[in-house]
């Protein structure tokens, strides 16, 4: 059974590379959920996250030939495209205007329940999207450190350092050994 799957996957990759949309859709389908969660946390906006995943999927489809390695590299490559798409979304001018308005609105709406917000939630909210990214990849999506590094386009030690720095902003007594 396992060997049958292993034989099938490279051929799907091959067909996708040759332009078969269904094959590519099949390959990235298992990645859509983690991609969405990554985007949603980076953007703090669920609809925008789905838009970003869709756009990233199309970009990945167009640039599939640039993928180095085999299907095992696909997840990190695709998630890095999603992260880039999120950054681009945030750079767009309308985004800052709309989101600023949303934040103000939410503050007013949620004001009575502020006491229920945990310290951790407030700390997460203070993180920038690029600080959230390594935490999402490592803790939330449970990617191995090597794959986090490939997604971030940094070395393994640099990825570990980024995770640690971001996590320290959430929990000050965190030790580096706990991020391993």
């Amino acid at each position, binding site marked *: 059974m396992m060997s049958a799957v292993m034989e099938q996957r490279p051929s799907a990759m091959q067909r996708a590379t040759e332009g078969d*949309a269904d094959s590519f859709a099949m390959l990235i389908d298992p990645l*859509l959920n983690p991609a*969405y969660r990554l985007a949603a*946390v980076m953007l703090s906006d*669920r609809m925008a996250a789905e838009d970003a995943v*869709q756009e990233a999927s*199309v970009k990945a489809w167009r640039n599939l030939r640039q993928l180095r390695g085999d299907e095992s590299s696909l997840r990190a490559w695709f998630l890095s495209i999603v992260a880039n798409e999120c950054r681009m979304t945030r750079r767009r001018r309308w985004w800052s205007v709309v989101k600023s308005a949303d934040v103000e609105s939410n503050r007013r709406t949620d004001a009575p329940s502020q006491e229920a917000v945990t310290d951790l939630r407030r700390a997460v909210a203070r993180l920038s999207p690029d600080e959230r990214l390594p935490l*999402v990849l490592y803790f939330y999506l449970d990617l191995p450190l090597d794959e986090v590094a490939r997604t971030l386009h940094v070395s393994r030690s640099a990825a570990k350092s980024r995770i640690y720095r971001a996590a320290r902003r*959430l929990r000050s007594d965190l030790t580096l050994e706990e991020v391993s």
Partner: protein
Amino acid sequence: MSQNFRRDLNREFDAISGSPSPALSARVRAALAENRPARTGPFWMAGLAAGLIAAIVVGVLVVASFNRHQTGVLPAGAPTPSASPSSVTHSPSPTQTPADNLPAFVCAGPVSLAGTSSPTVAFVDAVRTGTHPGYDRVTIEFNNGEPANVDMSPHDGTTFTQGASGQQVTLQGSTGLLVIIHGSDEHTAYTGSTDIKTGYSMLLELRQVEDFEGTVQWGLGLSKSACYRAFYLTNPARLVIDIQNS
């Protein structure tokens, strides 16, 4: 830690993200179907195509840049010049400009321009200079139309006699060009310099040598004998004098 930290953190991330809509997968499939990448040939074909496109783009840019210089690069804010050489008479020309709508450079003898619909007196309101690949340029702008006539001629040396006073002035350079503008004045609307030293390779200095009784004269000091051309541009009316610098 760490399990508690991870659990708590993931709970917060869950609260932020929720779950994707069930339609996300279908939505992505539809987007992929609509954005099918073009099939590509071997990489060498892509490289060849990219090279050809780059060559075409560079060629177009070079031609566009060259034409822009030929039709008069004026200081920022000046309207796009439209060449309208009018009634030009000059000696035979050995050098034809690439731009069909501009007169040829003249390497010896006088050049005359006749204005169209000229006012009694055309008021100079600006004098500018510029250097460009192939030529140095003088632009004399009028605020109410082209002057009746302009005569230009090479001048021996760079010493000119001032029209009203009879005093002599010597400009920089080894040879000169005299520009006589009939039916014009330079004291009604012009407040700029009457002695301009450029520092260019060919056109070194220009100086007003007469502004009297409806005639304006400028002397141009050149580093050496050079071919030149003159024409009018419109909107606003401008007398353009190009001196070849290479």
